């Protein structure tokens, strides 16, 4: 029935029904919000399903435009505005932002001299490990979101993602408890591999003979943790600090001689003996202070052959970081979260 024949058109009523339709259309997507906020102490690095990197960061600017009564605010931020209708998480963030920004921008907001006076001797050493773990996980999650968003928009944000991962690594070195540090960086390898897929340097493919070692976080001797004394490791000085590596029941270590990092592997399979090895350190490009031999941490050729007893000692690269310094050791340990070893023909 045409609405032209029913008296005065009920413009407001029609708009209300259309508005309701639009709301249902936009809110019709499966709910992407978590009912509860993420508690500190829980693992949060899977930021994703309810975080919309394309919209969330624009919320403060949109709120400011509304507060300043910008007549073009809704037009300029139309995509965000439509998004807010259908996304409870972003809508809630909008409400919070608007309210806090209004307080901040209001004329009667007195200068927060309380805050400016606020003196704190806080340092990363005195900051709760829980808060540091939380931030590291958030930064890694943020790197993942940045990469995914760039992928959707056919853009390249590798540099930004890398900077966020580096920041997480730098912060994590202040977490002295190994298990917490491991937790803080739980998704580091996975997210780093996302951006590395677009780098020009190729990571060697895994073969049947590939061995993957992982650092035993916090287990290195010398600075703290247990002291490992094995006959086949006797070639290194007794009190030398190290990063312990493990691949199944195989062990290895990374030690330092001067500024050179040395990899020691033992009990390597008979099929690897008498061969050169190609060593791949997937996180190697994340940290600039290490100058890897050959310049490519994904493909470091061993300096010698695997010995008849299955042992290999080979240099990896030079660094000014010191394994004997607890924080610097933590940073180096992160690099060896994953180390792959591939056979090369002699």
């Amino acid at each position: 029935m045409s609405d032209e024949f029913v008296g005065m058109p009920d413009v407001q009523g029609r708009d209300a029904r259309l508005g309701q339709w639009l709301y249902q259309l936009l809110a019709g997507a499966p709910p992407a919000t978590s009912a509860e906020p993420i508690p500190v102490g829980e693992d949060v690095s899977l930021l994703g399903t309810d975080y919309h990197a394309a919209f969330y960061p624009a919320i403060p600017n949109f709120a400011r435009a509304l507060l300043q009564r910008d007549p073009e605010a809704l037009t300029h931020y139309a995509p965000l505005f439509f998004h807010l209708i259908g996304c409870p998480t972003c809508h809630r963030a909008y409400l919070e932002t608007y309210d806090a920004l209004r307080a901040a921008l209001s004329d009667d907001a007195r200068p927060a001299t309380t805050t400016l006076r606020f003196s704190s001797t806080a340092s990363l050493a005195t900051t709760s490990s829980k808060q540091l773990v939380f931030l590291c996980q958030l930064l890694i999650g943020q790197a993942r979101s940045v990469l995914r968003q760039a992928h959707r928009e056919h853009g390249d944000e590798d540099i930004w993602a890398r900077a966020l991962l580096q920041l997480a690594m730098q912060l994590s070195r202040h977490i002295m408890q190994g298990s917490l540090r491991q937790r803080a960086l739980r998704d580091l390898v996975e997210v780093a591999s996302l951006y590395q897929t677009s780098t020009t340097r190729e990571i060697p493919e895994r073969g049947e003979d590939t061995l993957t070692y992982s650092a035993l976080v916090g287990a290195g001797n010398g600075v703290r943790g247990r002291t490992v004394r094995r006959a086949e490791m006797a070639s290194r000085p007794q009190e030398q600090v190290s990063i312990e590596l493990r691949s199944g029941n195989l062990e290895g270590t990374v030690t330092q001689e001067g500024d050179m990092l040395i990899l020691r592997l033992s009990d390597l399979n008979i099929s690897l003996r008498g061969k050169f090895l190609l060593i791949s350190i997937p996180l190697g490009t994340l940290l600039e202070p290490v100058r890897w031999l050959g310049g490519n941490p994904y493909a470091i050729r061993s300096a010698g052959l695997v010995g008849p007893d299955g042992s290999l000692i080979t240099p990896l690269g030079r660094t000014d970081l010191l394994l004997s310094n607890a924080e610097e050791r933590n940073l180096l340990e992160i690099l060896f979260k994953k180390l792959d070893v591939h056979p090369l023909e002699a």
Partner: protein
Amino acid sequence: MPFSANDLRYHLEESYPALCAYVQHRAQRYLGQLAFDAFETDQVVGHVIEYLTRIQLLGGGDRAPRTALDDLSNAQFYTFLNRMVQNKAIDRLRRRRLPMSTTGELEEQGNPDDDNDPLNSVVEPFWGDVPFANPEEAALEAVSRDQLRTLLKKCIETLSAAPRQLQAVIQELEELGAGELVREVRAEVSLDLDISVVAHLSQHKDHAHKKLRLCLQKNSTNLAVMLAIRITEYGTESSGTDELSVPIQTLTQRDLSLREVQTGLQHLTRAGLLNWQGEEVIHLTPAQRKLLTRFYEE
């Protein structure tokens, strides 16, 4: 040690401890009876840290776009953080159903900081007078405001590539009594389908809704509409011809970056409304001008 938004963006490692200490201090103040409940304090502190990370301020450096928070003075930034902390603390107290202190009561406690506390203002009910306090209100605004309605119409028109989906949406709109919008859409696209013979209508509707959701939240659509307006407004006629020319710099003005303008122009080119291949000046034929005017026509 005081910190600023700039410090959190560029020197996070140095300023994070101070941020945590400060937010925790304020959280304990506003949590009242829960002040010494470590879990509740962590909830409030974590909420603020998560927010600042999500808006890409923490460690954002030069890569993350600047936000309104970057332009606040230090005093304003602290006021902002205080308010965030206060609102979250109230939220936690409500969840635990504990009595909340009013600001007046807090003042009576004689905190030495009170004289200069920027938060000694009346605590308003949650989001009471915030525009678009609920999504339904925002949706009503979207369909009532000309330019947003135009965007909705343009997105509906893009369904013309899938006539059954377009027909399904038109039927919905007709049932709603949105005859005016339907007439506008029909004026732009031809549709010969007989709805009575369209099978699987609900499936077509679902697909159409998904496309509309994407289209409405796509920046290029919005940019294209804004640029179509500006091109027709700022274009100048070349002497002796009917052609219009517009330098793309004049389209940026104060609110659009060059990159945004380029994105919008690419969108208009893809839609067949322009022949722009990255030139500094856009040239329009009279026919294109007419199309662009209609693109915005309400």
